[in-house]
């Protein structure tokens, strides 16, 4: 890559500035201090590699404008443009080819062939004299020089080495204690020991498990022994406890020998006997009482039968008493009938009196009443009354109407006098019209106003005339004084006319006043007459209305009179028809003649009621008679039937009946007593039977008991019962004791229940107990110990089962081990890195130094004008030597400063050339040759020429003189700032 052209839009002090480098191999940029060489160099680097935003700030154009610019470069004989602008695309490079086509983003990166700014600085952008080399250049030092010129730089490599070593040592020292890995090894040792201690977890567990099983077995055995011993002890203690029972058993057995066995006595004989006796005793007592009651009852019954009458008489009495009931009732009825008959008779007589008719009961009962007689009488009576009433009213009305008519006729006559005839009326109306006309005409003749207007008109004529005269009179004077006379004439004439006119006026006024007075009188007379006529007409109109009304009333009255007269005639006709009906009834019922028809209306009902009353009374009288006959009959029969029993002579029949009733009641009471006694007797006899039946089984049972006990009487039975009781008690006690022994000492029972003599002694039993208890205590103690051992083993096993100690320790160990391995690997990484650096450094010095030295020799040969031929390392001294053309070898400290400078420049160029083989980028070289003489410049040029074959050299220098006439080719480019 060669730079052809530089276009700066704005960069530091540069603004809109272009430099044409023409792609020349050597371009010298010449300028004094502060002319912008460094800025230009920075610009080229900016375009190629960019700058961070912060650093770009430094180069913002001082006069404003955009920061940026472009380089036109030549690559493989083709032009390309690289442009960067500060505020566009974040100052990323924009590249075009010669045709202006935009190239990809990576294009520049590819063209730079991976060379970074740092690498570029190391290789292509250098100061020749920046190398500081000691005077004795050893292989290591030269190696360092090589490294320092490389991209990393020796410092960096040494720093890296140092860092790595430090880190490695902080991690691990073979003999150390503090480094991390050493500490971890210690910890791991400890942890591994712990694991080792615990890793026998399972065998230990199994051992304890076996131990536990053994102990458990022993426990079981001991428990069995203990159980057997316990059983023995219990048995012995039972023997001890039951020893009194054994003694009792023997005693009871001896007592039982006094009685027969079995003892002949009924089961529970005494109790049963007593029970039977207790049951029989109340029954016997009751039996006695019942027997006594029966005897008493029989005595009472006999006494009662003596008091009672025969049954025939009793029946007779009952019948009479039964019939006497109806007899007494009939007596009451007869009384009631008599009373009612009297009441009816009284009422009939009263009603007959009220009728005031000369008629007997028989006549009354024989009256020929038919169907509807009552209604007929009622009808006739009502119509009779009604028609007579109507007749009276109509007659009254007719009289009243006639009176009213007379009065109205008088009023009509009076009114008629006040009313005008039609002729009079017409005459008055005509007169009134005439008067009205006369009044109207007088009003229409010459009025005062008209006269006033006339007078005014006249006065106006006067004024006009006066004015004319005045004007005429003055005019001759105006025209010519000579005509004065004419004026005088006219004035006199005028005055005359005026005076005459005034006189006429006064005359007219006087005539008018006279005419006015006469006319007023005539009008007043007309008005008065008209007023009279109006009054007459008003009066006529008022009376005429009243007259017409009265005329109508009179006509109505006459009509009413006519109607009332007709009604009266009709009523009288109906009365005549009714009289015929009355006569008919009177001929049928002559008694009606005694009465006016008004009274007929209720007559039928009253007569009918009376007839009903007579009939009822007659019926009652008949019934009464029947009852009286029955009474007589009954009395006769009683007196005949009971003649011997009652004294009818001294007693009335009613009293005799009362007496009979008393006798009957007494007999009934006696009968009831007899029935009661008979019932009681039967009951007592039945009770006696029942008692006998109840007593029988008791007696049988008692007899049976006596028989079983083989005794005759009760006393002997009781004696036998007491003996049996004693025997029974002893027997029971013996059995109880035997059972107790059998139950608690089943093994010893046969021995212990043998009668006669003690099988064991109490003391021997107690001895055995003591021995047994001693053994038990010892066994229990052993069992507890064994159990404790089992529990201990169980606890150990449980602890093992639940213990996470091994788990934790194991995990912790592996965790630590993992950490250790990880750290070891980290250490190994550093170790490897360090070893590789060391190895590379060594190899670098061995492999590459000769190449560089060879190149440096070539330049040194040139720069010294072939005075020095070669550079080499003296392997013996491990130092660099120079060999002259004459074959003399010098150490560096034997060379002059100038020669050393040349040597260093040669080495620098050699190194750069060696490093730059992979990228043909321009060299940017600062002036480092200021103090060189002309010959040396020439040589420098030669060296540069060597370089420019491959690379473009852009040389920044202060003075143009440096290269002026120093043999640089014309095709090189000089740019002066």
């Amino acid at each position, binding site marked *: 890559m060669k730079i052809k052209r530089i276009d700066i839009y704005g960069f530091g002090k540069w603004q809109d500035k272009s430099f044409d480098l023409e792609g020349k191999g050597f371009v010298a940029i010449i300028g004094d201090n502060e002319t912008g060489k460094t800025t230009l160099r920075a610009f080229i680097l900016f375009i190629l*590699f960019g*700058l*961070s935003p912060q*650093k770009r700030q430094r180069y913002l154009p001082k006069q404003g404008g955009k920061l940026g610019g472009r380089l036109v470069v030549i690559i493989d004989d083709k032009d390309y443009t690289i442009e960067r602008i500060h505020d566009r695309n974040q100052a990323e490079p924009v590249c075009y080819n010669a045709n202006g086509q935009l190239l990809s983003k990576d294009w520049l990166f590819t063209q730079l*062939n*991976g060379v*970074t*700014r*740092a*690498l570029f*600085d190391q290789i292509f952008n250098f100061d020749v004299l920046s190398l500081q080399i000691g005077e004795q250049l050893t292989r290591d030092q030269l190696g360092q020089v090589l*490294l320092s010129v*490389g*991209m*990393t730089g020796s410092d*960096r*490599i040494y*720093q*890296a080495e140092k860092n*790595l070593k430090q880190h490695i040592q902080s991690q*691990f020292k*073979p003999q150390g204690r503090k480094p991390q*890995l050493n500490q971890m*090894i210690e910890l791991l*040792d400890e942890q*591994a020991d712990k694991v080792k201690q615990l890793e026998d*977890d*399972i065998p230990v*567990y*199994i051992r304890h498990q076996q131990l536990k099983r053994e102990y458990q077995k022993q426990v079981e055995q001991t428990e069995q022994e203990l159980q057997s011993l316990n059983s023995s002890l219990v048995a012995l203690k039972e023997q001890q406890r039951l020893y009194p029972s054994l003694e009792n058993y023997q005693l009871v057995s001896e007592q039982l020998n006094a009685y027969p066995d079995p003892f002949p006595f009924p089961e529970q004989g005494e109790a049963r006997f007593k029970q039977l006796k207790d049951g029989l005793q109340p029954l016997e007592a009751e039996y006695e009482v019942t027997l006594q009651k029966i005897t008493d009852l029989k005595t009472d019954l006999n006494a009662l039968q003596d008091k009672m009458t025969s049954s025939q008489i009793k029946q007779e009495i009952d019948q009479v008493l039964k019939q006497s009931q109806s007899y007494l009732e009939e007596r009451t009825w007869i009384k009631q009938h008599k009373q009612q008959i009297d009441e009816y008779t009284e009422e009939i007589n009263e009603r007959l009196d009220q009728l005031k008719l000369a008629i007997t009961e028989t006549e009354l009962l024989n009256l020929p009443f038919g169907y509807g007689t009552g209604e007929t009488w009622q009808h006739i009576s009502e119509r009779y009354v009604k028609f007579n009433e109507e007749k009276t009213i109509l007659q009254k009305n007719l009289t009243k109407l006639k009176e009213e008519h007379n009065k109205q006729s008088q009023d009509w006559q009076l009114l008629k006098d006040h009313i005008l005839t039609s002729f009079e009326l017409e005459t008055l109306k005509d007169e009134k019209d005439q008067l009205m006309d006369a009044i109207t005409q007088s009003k229409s003749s010459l009025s005062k106003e008209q006269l006033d207007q006339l007078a005014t008109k006249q006065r106006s004529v006067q004024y006009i005339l006066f004015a004319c005269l005045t004007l005429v009179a003055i005019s001759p004077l105006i025209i010519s004084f000579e005509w004065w006379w004419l004026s005088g004439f006219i004035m006199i004439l005028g005055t005359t006319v005026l005076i005459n006119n005034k006189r006429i006026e006064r005359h007219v006024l006087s005539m008018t006043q006279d005419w006015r007075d006469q006319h007023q009188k005539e009008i007043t007379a007309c008005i008065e007459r008209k007023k009279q006529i109006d009054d007459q007409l008003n009066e006529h109109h008022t009376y005429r209305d009243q007259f017409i009304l009265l005329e109508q009333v009179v006509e109505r009255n006459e009509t009413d009179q006519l109607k009332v007269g007709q009604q009266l005639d009709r009523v009288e006709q109906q009365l005549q028809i009714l009289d015929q009906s009355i006569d008919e009834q009177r001929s049928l019922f002559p008694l009606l003649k005694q009465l006016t028809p008004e009274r007929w209306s209720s007559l039928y009902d009253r007569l009918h009621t009376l007839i009903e009353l007579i009939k009822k009374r007659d019926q009652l009288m008949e019934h009464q008679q029947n009852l009286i006959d029955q009474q007589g009959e009954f009395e006769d029969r009683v007196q005949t039937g009971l003649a011997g029993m009652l004294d009818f002579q001294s007693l009335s029949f009613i009293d005799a009946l009362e007496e009979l009733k008393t006798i009957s009641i007494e007999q009934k009471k006696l009968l009831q007593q007899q029935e009661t006694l008979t019932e009681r007797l039967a009951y007592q006899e039945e009770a006696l039977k029942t008692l006998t039946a109840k007593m029988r089984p008791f007696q049988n049972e008692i007899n049976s008991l006596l028989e079983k006990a083989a005794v005759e009487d009760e006393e002997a039975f009781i004696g036998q019962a007491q003996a049996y009781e004693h025997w029974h008690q002893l027997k029971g006690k013996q059995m109880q004791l035997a059972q107790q022994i059998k139950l608690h000492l089943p093994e010893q029972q046969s021995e212990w229940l043998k009668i006669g003599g003690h099988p064991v002694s109490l003391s021997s039993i107690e001895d055995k107990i003591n021995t047994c208890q001693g053994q038990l205590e010892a066994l229990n103690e052993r069992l507890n110990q064994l159990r404790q051992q089992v529990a201990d083993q169980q606890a150990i096993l449980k602890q093992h*089962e*639940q*213990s*996470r100690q*091994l*788990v934790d320790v*194991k*995990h912790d160990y*592996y*965790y630590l081990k*993992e*950490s*250790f*391995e990880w*750290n*070891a*690997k980290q250490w*190994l*990484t*550093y*170790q*490897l*890195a360090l070893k*590789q*650096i060391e190895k*590379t450094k060594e190899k*670098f010095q061995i492999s*590459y130094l000769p190449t560089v030295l060879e190149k440096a020799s070539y330049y040194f040969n040139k720069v010294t004008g072939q005075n020095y031929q070669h550079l080499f390392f003296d392997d013996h001294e491990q130092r660099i030597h120079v060999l002259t053309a004459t074959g003399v070898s010098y150490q560096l400290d034997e060379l002059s400063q100038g020669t050393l400078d040349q040597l260093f420049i040669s080495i620098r160029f050699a190194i750069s050339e*060696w490093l730059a083989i*992979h990228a043909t980028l321009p060299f940017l070289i600062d002036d480092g040759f200021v103090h060189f003489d002309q010959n040396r410049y020439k040589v420098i040029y030669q060296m540069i020429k060597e370089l420019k074959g491959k690379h473009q050299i852009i040389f920044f220098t202060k003075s143009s003189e440096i290269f002026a006439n120093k043999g640089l080719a014309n095709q090189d480019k000089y740019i002066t700032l």
Partner: protein
Amino acid sequence: MEKKISFIHCADLHLDSPFKGMSRLPAHLYQQLKRSTFDALDNLVALAINKNVDFILIVGDVFDESIQSVYAEMQFLMACQKLEQAGIEIYLSFGNHDYNQTKQRFVQFPDNVHLFDSDQVTSKVFKKNGKPLVAIHGFSYLERAVTINKTDQYQAVPNLPYQIAMLHGSIQQSKEHDHYAPFQLSDLINKPFDYWALGHIHKRAILSEDPPVVYSGNTQGRSVKEVGKKGCYFVSLDQSKKAQIHFEALHAIQFDQLTIDVRHCQQIDQLYQILSDQMKQLEKARRILFIKLINYQDALLSLYHQGKIADLIDVLNEQYQDQSDWLSIQQVTLTEQAKSIDTTLEARDPFMKELFQGFDSIDWDEVMSELWHHRKARRFLNGLTEEEKQQIAEEAKQLLRFQLTGNDTYED
């Protein structure tokens, strides 16, 4: 309907197994992690009871051989007792990690545990409602290794509706697991079996659908190599013979490895944001994370070696580790460098070029000897695998890049 069965297939419980790669987990979380294999066992029991399965198949490696504890044995025994109460049968075989259980066992299993205690394949019959229904075949390891192919020993029991095989082993020619009852998949498929329950491989896999040949994987992850959900398969078989297989997670703590592209990440706060976002996106669970940052830039490398990324992880961990569903980043590694300017630098700069070329011929013995041959340390250190060596070399390169070029500013 009566012939339908359901069971759980699990393996490689590795109760009480140590965990690998744990170096920066806080104490309280590490306590949980230590319990996690037991928690997974509890979860298994709960699942079996909840699903009311007929039986459970445990195909080897219930315990871990490293150092056995009574505690682990007791935990397993208690689990069996719980299942016995629930009326669930257990068919158990031991594998290469718990082969010693076959010979030496001090725990008396309850009656519901049917142990295949022979190294020859035997059969046990599962009865449902008194009727023989399933023949279950299996064997246990008596030694650490079983080199022979056991496939031929699996012979179906006639007149039973279902045949299920339990096999703790790996496919033949598998490099890592050559000595564990090697088998050919085709051999298994050709057998008249309804389900092949495999164990030994910790990554679950369904090798064949019909008949199902299934690795259930382990129940709890133990290192970055055992990432994702871990658990068992819940299997239903009916007369159609078509197995319904559902994975059920049992793990208590999940290991995860995240690979995050950080090519646009230059600064620590950007990285914080990226990691924070990634963690927020994760489903809530107790997790241990291993993060690989790929396509990292030089700036990130510098931050990494300056310890800034480690600090960042501490900050993130502090945010998450006190939650019930905690999350802990265990490690962040830079694995692939972005195509950057500095990689070309290695080719440009002779020293760097030489330096990195030197990595092609590392004398590991020399480099390691100081620590690996150290009298006290050597017993705690194993030899390194090629993979580990490669990783260490890569990290050393990163370190050198950082040390030699890191923190460089491009400008003067």
